[in-house]
């Protein structure tokens, strides 16, 4: 019952934090470019504005799919962000394990893809095919990089179990074993592609294929599609922090407040993860071509995660 209440409370918190994280990201991005940048509250204004705008359905679109895809995408992304949050607060496993969380993130990508391809716009179709390529590129190393964690946590894929095994070890996975250190590097290298930010934003390249799968969306549907993306990058940076960098002396040991205190500490440190994996790449690098992006995913992150799986199977 407590777990369910924590999940229900985490859903609005995940929405709020996703928008806040986008605001922090945009502010840092602007500062790194020597601009003043929008206020941190800017994504809230954008969201409220888009919700209040007219929604337009292209005559060539299949309306039911076009309208429902962003709703499902936003719901799955928000749930993917809320489950780890609720699990930390409640101090127990909530709803599902790590496989479910990563599956929900994939679901969100697939739903915006389907929405874009149902718009009837050729740019939407190009966005669909490019997103498909990117999905194949980053899903394999991302999923492979959590295997060593499971092997080191009594063969459990439970998110809470993996976090707790770091408490048991007294150190975080990124520094515990060689295999999990490689896994952390692979996971971090996959985040820019999974969050769809600039070096890997080939599916929605604005100046190239006019926002790809988002091209025909406007108003409330665009608000939800953007929220889905924000929630995915929040979920990924929060997962990266708690799965690989949950250093017990830092995040644990506030017995009076329990799980809530460690959840708040993790939320406070998660922007550092996002800065490292989302803001810095998108400020420093220019957009890759789809082939280059795919080649990157299947060279560096896949090598790192394959290495980590082999090392963990060998017992390191």
């Amino acid at each position, binding site marked *: 019952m407590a777990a369910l209440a924590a999940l229900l409370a985490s859903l609005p918190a995940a929405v709020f934090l996703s928008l806040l994280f986008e605001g922090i990201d945009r502010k840092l991005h*602007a500062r790194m470019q020597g601009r003043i940048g929008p206020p941190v509250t800017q994504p809230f204004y954008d969201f409220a504005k888009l919700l209040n705008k*007219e929604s337009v359905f292209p005559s060539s679109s299949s309306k039911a799919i076009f309208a429902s895809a962003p709703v499902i995408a936003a719901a799955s992304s928000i749930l993917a962000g809320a489950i780890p949050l609720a699990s930390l607060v409640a101090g127990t496993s909530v709803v599902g394990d790590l496989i479910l969380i990563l599956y929900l993130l994939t679901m969100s990508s697939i739903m915006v893809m389907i929405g874009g391809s149902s718009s009837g716009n050729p740019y939407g179709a190009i966005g669909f095919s490019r997103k498909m390529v990117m999905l194949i590129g980053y899903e394999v190393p991302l999923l492979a990089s959590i295997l060593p964690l499971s092997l080191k946590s009594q063969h459990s894929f439970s998110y809470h179990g993996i976090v707790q095994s770091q408490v048991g070890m007294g150190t975080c996975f990124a520094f515990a074993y060689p295999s999990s250190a490689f896994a952390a590097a692979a996971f971090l290298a996959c985040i820019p592609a999974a969050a769809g930010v600039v070096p890997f934003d080939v599916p929605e390249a604005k100046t190239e294929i006019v*926002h790809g799968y988002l091209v025909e969306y406007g108003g409330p549907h665009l608000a939800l599609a953007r929220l889905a993306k924000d929630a995915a990058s929040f979920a990924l940076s929060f997962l990266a922090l708690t799965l690989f960098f949950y250093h017990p002396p830092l995040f644990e040991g506030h017995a009076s407040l329990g799980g809530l205190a460690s959840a708040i500490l993790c939320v406070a440190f998660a922007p550092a993860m996002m800065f490292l994996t989302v803001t810095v790449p998108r400020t420093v690098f220019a957009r890759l071509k789809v082939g280059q992006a795919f080649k990157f995913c299947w060279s560096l992150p896949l090598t790192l995660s394959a290495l980590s799986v082999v090392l963990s199977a060998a017992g390191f």
Partner: protein
Amino acid sequence: MRQEGSAVRIGARSRIKSPWLFHLNTGSCNGCDIEIVASLAPRYDAERLGCVLVGSPRHADVILVTGPVTRQMLPRVIRVYEQLPEPKSLVAVGTCAASGAPFIGSGVIEGPLDGIIPVDAYVLGCPPRPEAIVRGIVTAVRRRFS
């Protein structure tokens, strides 16, 4: 009633705080287009007011029209204007879009723009300064969205 009032207020405020721009060139010499980019670049940074240049008219709130509207562009200007979801606003950037000068009276010009679609703000200059463009966006957004 009071609830509805505050919802309307939040809607109006968020629209003023987040004008997304779509740039439409209707036969401009590219001078105004460069100045629009300059108003978004670090020195004038229109994003601090929430302005983002978007690629699709479906995402936009404000169209920045440059150029004197050539005959070829006339149906396209109207079509792009209609593709923006309501509520929307329009800024005529540069003397060409605002008055048609120096091409007024030419047989290949259908402008000035305000004879075709409603204009909320005029930014004069050939080309206008970036701060004038930012001011024009703010004026149009306040006039139309508040």
